[in-house]
């Protein structure tokens, strides 16, 4: 027997360490930490995760099929329910996709209004992700403090469009109504209130050693792996890649505003938390700039073929009534073609791949859901970590079931 053989034997005897003692733990689909519904079947060695398998699709709602059977303007309420934490971004992304296909140029005022609304909903999205991370780490109170600010955002949305969460905000070609002075005042008040609330939230978490210990080095992913896994948004930025659709391909006049892209170092949970946190500050900056510079003008583009005429004209003028009927019945000229358009959603690059055959409904509409794509890295991210780490990693990724399962 040679030495190499002995070594080989030693290794093989050591290899299957207590394989018989692995326990299977079913995390989900109704586990409190999943916030939505996924199943993770964990193979555990004591508290340590040896391997895992994710199952998704527990709220698969067939968005893409549904979008093929609804006229263009009816798809807006469907997009609401994709990433329901930041519905307005989904709405706007869809409007911009349709506008790109049709070739509508929106006035500056519409762009600025969209930027304000999108940044508000980005705050709402990041806020819920970060505070839920706090809840999963065991601190419930910060969540309730910051949620009051989300309630303020709801208030603003309600004033703009009439609903809190599933907003159905805006229309193809513009906004459904102009900002009233009270909305603008409310947003200004929110900017001031939120600054205080966010500072308070930060002092509860940012430098708290218990929280830092829980999150630093947990669920990390390198920039290379993250790119290979198709990460985008805050989770990619946490790994150190400053990819942001708002900057690389500016839409809705994002290049008018001055803001930074916060990035992290190792892509671990603390990085993600801090990047999201800092992005909220940047969003506040953008909103303030947009509000200060809000240009005058109409709140919609001048496209009578696609944008509903005002109601008074519909009641009183035949021409407007005809346009009205045509738009609602969907008998409008929509060009053929295929478009890919993306916006920076709460979780990353939210893409819409639209194929139109000229009919009243899209021939095919595919949503590039960032959450769906980066969720597959989860198995790799939690390998070898503790059960508690699984939970905080999961909530720091901001997994929204509606977005993942589509």
């Amino acid at each position, binding site marked *: 027997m040679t030495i190499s053989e002995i070594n080989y034997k030693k290794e093989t005897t050591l290899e299957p360490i207590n394989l018989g003692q692995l326990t299977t733990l079913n995390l989900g689909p*109704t586990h409190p930490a999943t916030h939505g519904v996924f199943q993770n079947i964990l193979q555990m060695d004591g508290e340590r995760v040896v391997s895992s398998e994710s199952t998704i699709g527990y*709220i698969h709602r067939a968005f893409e099929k549904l979008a093929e059977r609804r006229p263009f303007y009816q798809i807006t309420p469907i997009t609401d329910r994709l990433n329901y934490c930041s519905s307005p971004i989904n709405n706007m992304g869809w409007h911009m996709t349709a506008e790109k296909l049709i070739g509508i140029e929106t006035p500056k005022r519409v762009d600025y209004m969209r930027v304000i609304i999108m940044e508000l909903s980005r705050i709402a999205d990041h806020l819920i992700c970060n505070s839920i991370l706090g809840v999963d780490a065991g601190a419930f109170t910060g969540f309730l403090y910051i949620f009051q600010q989300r309630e303020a955002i709801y208030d603003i949305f309600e004033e703009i469009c009439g609903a809190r969460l599933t907003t159905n905000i805006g229309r193809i070609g513009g906004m459904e109504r102009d900002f009233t002075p009270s909305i603008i005042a409310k947003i200004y008040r929110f900017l001031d209130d939120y600054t205080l609330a966010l500072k308070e939230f930060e002092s509860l978490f940012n430098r708290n050693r218990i929280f830092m210990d829980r999150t630093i080095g947990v669920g990390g992913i390198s920039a290379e792996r993250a790119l290979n896994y198709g990460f985008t948004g805050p989770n990619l930025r946490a790994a150190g890649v400053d990819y942001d659709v708002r900057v690389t391909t500016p839409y809705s006049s994002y290049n008018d505003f001055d803001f930074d892209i916060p990035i992290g170092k190792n892509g671990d949970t603390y990085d993600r938390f801090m990047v999201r946190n800092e992005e909220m500050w940047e969003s506040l900056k953008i909103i303030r700039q947009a509000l200060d510079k809000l240009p005058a003008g109409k709140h919609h583009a001048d496209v009578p073929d696609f944008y509903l005429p005002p109601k008074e004209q519909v009641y009183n003028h035949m021409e407007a009534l005809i346009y009205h009927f045509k738009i609602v019945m969907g008998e409008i000229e929509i060009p053929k073609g295929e478009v890919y358009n993306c916006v920076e959603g709460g979780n990353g690059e939210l893409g819409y791949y639209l194929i139109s055959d000229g009919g009243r409904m899209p021939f095919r509409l595919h949503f590039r859901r960032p959450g769906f794509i980066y969720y597959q890295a989860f198995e790799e991210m939690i390998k070898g970590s503790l059960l508690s780490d699984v939970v905080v990693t999961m909530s720091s990724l901001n997994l929204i079931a509606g977005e993942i399962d589509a």
Partner: protein
Amino acid sequence: MVNTAEAPEGVEGPGFFATSLDKVVGLARKHSIWPLPFATSCCGIEFMATMASTYDLARFGAERPSFSPRQADLLMVMGTIAKKMGPVVRQVYEQMSEPRWVIAVGACASSGGIFDTYSVLQGIDKIIPVDVYVPGCPPRPEQIIDGLMRIQDLVEKEPTRRRDSSEYKALLSSYGIK
């Protein structure tokens, strides 16, 4: 398995003692409904808003969400239940201990809502009995609280022995739940 209180001997039927006991128990249960938030999608976020400071579900004694079905009194199904999820909902319902109530929050849970698609269950009342429906997509927190108060009304009026009655058993068996 149902071990609700047995009436003392001699008080068969709704005698005075039994009815006043029912009243007390009903009142107590009414104020201590521990929900199991079965939140799958958008309505879950509005449920968070209901739990949060502005609406504060705690005022009704219902702020302790028990994620373990054994400890819960009220199953709040919030959000779309896909056909893949259906068996899970049912299992959770079966694991809950009596008395249990179910509230379907939002259009999706109640009827499928906008998602009249091949993959979505068209209302959870196809698999488990539902006590209260809350419309809205998602319902406002006010509506969720409203739904909870409807449940409270039900709970308060329910006799302690209802769960042993043959009607109730027939209801369950019509859903195939033993």
